[in-house]
């Protein structure tokens, strides 16, 4: 079975490309990226600010189940062409991952299907590789939490 989401990352480069085909018309796909109501649902985050326009800025905040701020992400939109393109920066507060430049290309495939191509450029190869390893890092935290839960039950 062909994978819906493809990630292209070459060794020694400071960029990645993520491609995904959606069973959605392109205008709905675009809406998911510009309207706070939808961003909050699929990104599982709180949208503190979302100025979906040229030179507008955005700010998201995610809290853990205990209500502590888990992470804050911010950036500026450089270009926004409805149903076609978004160019923005992305920075995760309090992390050493630097600023990413993100280019989103939206494209209608048929009337009811669409494609997203996400081109992300990092400050350095090392930072890109760190971000790629992130899910592993998150997984380790998850594993630690599980361990704590298990140990907690034994007490």
């Amino acid at each position, binding site marked *: 079975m062909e994978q*819906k989401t493809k990630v292209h990352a070459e060794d020694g480069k400071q960029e990645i490309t993520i491609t995904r085909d959606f069973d959605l018309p392109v205008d709905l796909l675009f809406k998911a990226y510009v309207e706070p109501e939808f961003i909050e*649902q699929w990104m599982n985050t709180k949208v503190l600010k979302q100025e979906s326009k040229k030179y507008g800025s955005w700010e998201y905040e995610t809290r853990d189940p205990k209500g502590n701020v888990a992470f804050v992400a911010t950036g500026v939109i450089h270009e926004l062409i409805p149903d076609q393109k978004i160019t923005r920066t992305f920075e995760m507060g309090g992390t050493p991952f630097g600023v990413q430049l993100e280019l989103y290309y939206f494209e209608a495939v048929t009337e009811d299907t669409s494609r997203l191509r996400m081109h992300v450029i990092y400050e350095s190869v090392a930072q890109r590789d760190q971000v790629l390893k992130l899910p592993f890092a998150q997984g380790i935290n998850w594993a630690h939490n599980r361990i704590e839960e298990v140990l907690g039950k034994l007490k």
Partner: protein
Amino acid sequence: MNLRRDVFQAIADPTRRAILLLVASQAMTAGAIAANFDTARPTVSKHLAILTECELLQQEQNGREIYYHINAKNMKEVADFIEPFRQMWDDRFNKLEAVMKNYKSKK
């Protein structure tokens, strides 16, 4: 089972990825690893055997216990850690698709 297994095949399985994540922080016995999963113990043992076969895990005898620890040098290639990253995005995009389909049907 004598075939040397492919690293990709090894990390394609979610339980095996979770095992790698667990052991990445510290060496653990099979029992301690299995305690983290709802899966039956023999299933976890099978996963451990596969991960050991493709050299992502190493066994180390410590007294009466066998500890599993991660073989870091086999985890360093971009190709090895890209799959969890891809899965993360796949999950996110699946959610986006579900949220927008739900909205579309309500319109």
